[in-house]
């Protein structure tokens, strides 16, 4: 327990330090000004969310073919943590957009995609809460997770094509636009810290799910006797 607290404190301090460095080390962007610095956490979180959902897909496929409970635990951990990262993307986007465009939300292609992705994984987690039996819950949520993941590139392309036909203000410009070397360093630092955070959070959630499984087993034992 103490070890995990120490790890968490170190990691969170690291993230705060990284943000501070990103803040001061990277130069202020010419056209946008200081507000551009939201870019680092916004994009890094989006990337980490995709890593999390890729992990969820891997876990889902593993479960369907091996039926190992560990795969199920990894799946739910990855989905929940990924959803947290999506939440941060969806909050930092509008915080950036409002001072720059004067509006909180535009149906910008990337943000819309992120929203739909979030909805898919909310559905995944909701489905899990609606199936009581552990084996069924694991199997059917895994199958839904697989379909959901296959949908992601299709959602991405359809939204992008649709947006090129009905253009709107784009949040945060292209990913690589104006990436000066010092900005690149700041971005990499941020991404490194967030990947560490991703691993820490998934690990914690995984252990929680494993513990929950053993509690369920103990409960069943207690009922039988």
């Amino acid at each position, binding site marked *: 327990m103490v070890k995990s607290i120490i790890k968490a404190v170190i990691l969170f301090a690291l993230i705060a330090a990284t943000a501070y460095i990103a803040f001061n080390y990277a130069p202020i962007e010419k056209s946008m000004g200081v507000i551009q610095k939201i870019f680092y956490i916004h994009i890094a979180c989006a990337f980490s969310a995709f890593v999390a959902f890729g992990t969820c897909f891997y876990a889902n496929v593993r479960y369907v073919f091996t039926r190992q409970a560990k795969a199920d635990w990894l799946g739910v951990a990855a989905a929940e943590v990924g959803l947290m990262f999506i939440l941060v993307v969806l909050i930092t986007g509008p915080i950036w957009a409002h001072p720059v465009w004067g509006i909180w939300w535009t149906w910008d292609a990337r943000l819309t995609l992120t929203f739909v992705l979030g909805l898919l994984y909310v559905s995944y987690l909701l489905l899990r809460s609606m*199936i009581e039996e552990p084996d069924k819950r694991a199997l059917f949520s895994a199958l839904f997770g697989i379909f959901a993941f296959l949908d992601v590139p*299709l959602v991405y392309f359809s939204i992008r094509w*649709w947006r090129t036909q009905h253009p709107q203000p784009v949040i945060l410009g292209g990913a690589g636009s104006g990436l000066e070397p010092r900005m690149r360093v700041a971005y990499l630092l941020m991404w490194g810290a967030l990947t560490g955070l991703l691993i820490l959070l998934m690990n914690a959630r995984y252990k929680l799910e494993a513990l929950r499984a053993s509690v369920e087993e103990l409960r069943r034992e207690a009922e039988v006797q």
Partner: protein
Amino acid sequence: MGLLSNTAVLLGKELRTEFRSRELLTTTVVFILVVVVLFSFTFDPTSSESRRFGPGLLWLSFLFAASLMLQPCFLREQNNDTLSALRLSVSDPFAIFLAKLVANTVFLLLTEVLMLPIFAVLYNVHILPVLAQLVLVFLLGSLGVAIPGTAFSAISAQARMRELMLPLLLLPLLTPVLIASTESTAGLLDANPELRWAWLGFLAGFDVVFLTALWLFGEYLLEE
């Protein structure tokens, strides 16, 4: 018995069951009608406005109707305990899904085509010159709805609150179908009608992806 003959037999059963009572078809058509009428109160249905909003609301109402219409698909089997019998009757479990999704596509297509003239009259759009192309768009779109819809009907049958779970699972996933179908329909209802092949190709691709996924994972969806 091969996959196709198994499918044909099961498909016959699905179609016969529905056409005996026709309750699914009639309630779905009425539902779409209600939604279309309600939508008309949200904007002024002049010709140009209808062309802007019409395709979207048409497909939105199809999607809502489908997420209700697909509920009984596997629920009926569960309630009557016929799923294990069904699985024993075929050599390839994919036949069960193939039969159900073809039946669902047929039902959806029928309700959509029935709605088309009513929509045209209520919203002042010209559908006759592009009727065949519209049916093509409806076919590809309905497949796009029915394929994951049939799969998720099997999934939601295992969950509590299944009436709400099916739309919740299905609708976010169908975003690409909604976009592609709306764009294709809008192109055909435009002042200068055109068939947007890129979007149709995309719809076909969507159908292929999920049909393949259903083929690969279908047998696991039938586990009890």
